[in-house]
């Protein structure tokens, strides 16, 4: 019987799965529009546009919930970087690259105070506080192009905004793949997924 700690309160679990569904919808419809081809339609273009727009607006609201949740609850402290971040990142990366295969113990075991290892923390901060805000901001600008700073960037404003939006969307897609894979590294391959459903993390 493994030891369990309660790590994920209900609001985080609800937000997480809700956010996951939105991101999947946005990624698939985004790819479908960016690589639209009359011969090989992934999703009908007009459906993609509608789904992408609606999911995008809901993502903005979801992000506000995430931000307020972390601002108003102690969960926000999980995103503070500790001293010696570079050294810690290297240690964690070395563990994933070599230590894990030698049966070493994780260098940063998960506790109630430190839910994330340095690599998780770094990637979550990058995605949630850099990538998602950028993708949201550029998305709003594309949805309401009259707000584009045309006076500053001229006719290229729409073009530059789209490129940033697409690059950020691609980073989120890559993050999602890596995130799902690393979730299989737990007590059992499915235990981390279960943890995000029942709130309890099984100690590895």
């Amino acid at each position: 019987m493994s030891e369990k700690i309660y790590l994920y309160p209900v609001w985080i679990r609800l937000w997480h799965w809700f956010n996951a569904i939105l991101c999947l919808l946005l990624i698939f419809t985004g790819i479908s529009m960016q690589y639209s081809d009359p011969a090989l339609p992934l999703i009908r273009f007009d459906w993609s546009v509608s789904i992408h727009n609606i999911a995008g607006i809901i993502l903005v609201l979801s992000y506000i919930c995430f931000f307020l949740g972390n601002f108003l609850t102690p969960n926000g402290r999980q995103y503070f970087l500790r001293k010696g971040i570079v050294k810690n990142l290297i240690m964690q990366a070395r563990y994933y690259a070599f230590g894990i295969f030698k049966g070493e113990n994780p260098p940063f075991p998960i506790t109630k105070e430190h839910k994330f290892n340095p690599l998780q923390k770094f990637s979550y901060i990058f995605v949630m506080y850099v990538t998602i805000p950028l993708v949201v901001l550029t998305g709003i600008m594309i949805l309401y192009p009259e707000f584009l700073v045309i006076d500053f960037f001229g006719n290229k404003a729409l073009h530059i905004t789209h490129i940033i939006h697409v690059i950020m969307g691609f980073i989120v897609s890559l993050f999602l793949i890596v995130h799902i894979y690393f979730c299989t590294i737990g007590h059992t391959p499915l235990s981390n997924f279960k943890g995000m459903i029942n709130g309890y993390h099984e100690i590895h």
Partner: protein
Amino acid sequence: MKRNLYRILGVFIFFSLFLFQPNYILAQTDQTQRIAEYAEDNQLCFSCHGQANYYYQNDWMGKKVKERMNPYFIVDSVEYYQSNHWKFSCRDCHSADYGEFPHSGQLRMEPKFACLDCHAGDEQYAKFNFEQIEEDFHKSVHSSKHSEDFTCWMCHNPHSYKINARTNENMADFIQYDNEICLTCHADISKYQLLTTMENPNVLVTHNWLPNQVLHFKKVRCIECHTQINDNTLVAHNVRPKEEAIKLCVVCHSKESRLLASLYKYQFTNERSITGFSNEAMLEESYVIGANRNYYLNVISIGLFVLVFLGLCIHAFLRIIIKH
């Protein structure tokens, strides 16, 4: 030291704003300096036909009489001298007898020139392929539904029409100019019903389905979706019935975008640009999702995706064989 640094940065940002300012100053065209050879002669006509009212000496009444000019006979002299036909004397196309005033009643029977009367079979106009344009026009819903009532002049007023797509560097301007030709009738019930008893549909309502309607109206012409493209003409003239209008987004929003054969026909080249964007001609004015992809970004993203996926597969494989 820190304050100085902020000052230098401030000055740099301030001057950068000027560097990024778009060029609003349009190149002055020669249109403002046009002095037609027949300007003086034409002015005689414009003195009445350029005004809402005209005066003539009524010998029966023995006095000068003021009359209202038929609005269909009013020609705006400013528009005329900016139009394609600005070099012509009025009497090049209208009877020389119009030189006499009051005009003879017989002149009402004067047949009007059609476009091909001048433009057909002339090598100077060969590139426009007017014969093909006429053929396409006769297949169009405009011609087939309204027969002889609908002539070239309905859209191309010979007293004001000017070619735009090839000469106007500001694409937004020529798109607006071209769309206004359609809207002259399709957004004006009094003109629309000159040819039909049908109710004029509200263009905004009938295009409600279009996402980002305002942007589409600004960035593309009506004819992009409402005509059948002919590779032999620069501008499609075969306007199709509304049921045949293109409503499939991917026709434009894809790599082989229809816009390349219509709106961007003049700028289109097959080569991929140095920046790697497909259909770069479009990027000067807009960004068309699906049509403007970047080759280098595609290669980098696919490469990164494959590397990450392979890395994870190898990691998973090692975890399985080491059974950890």
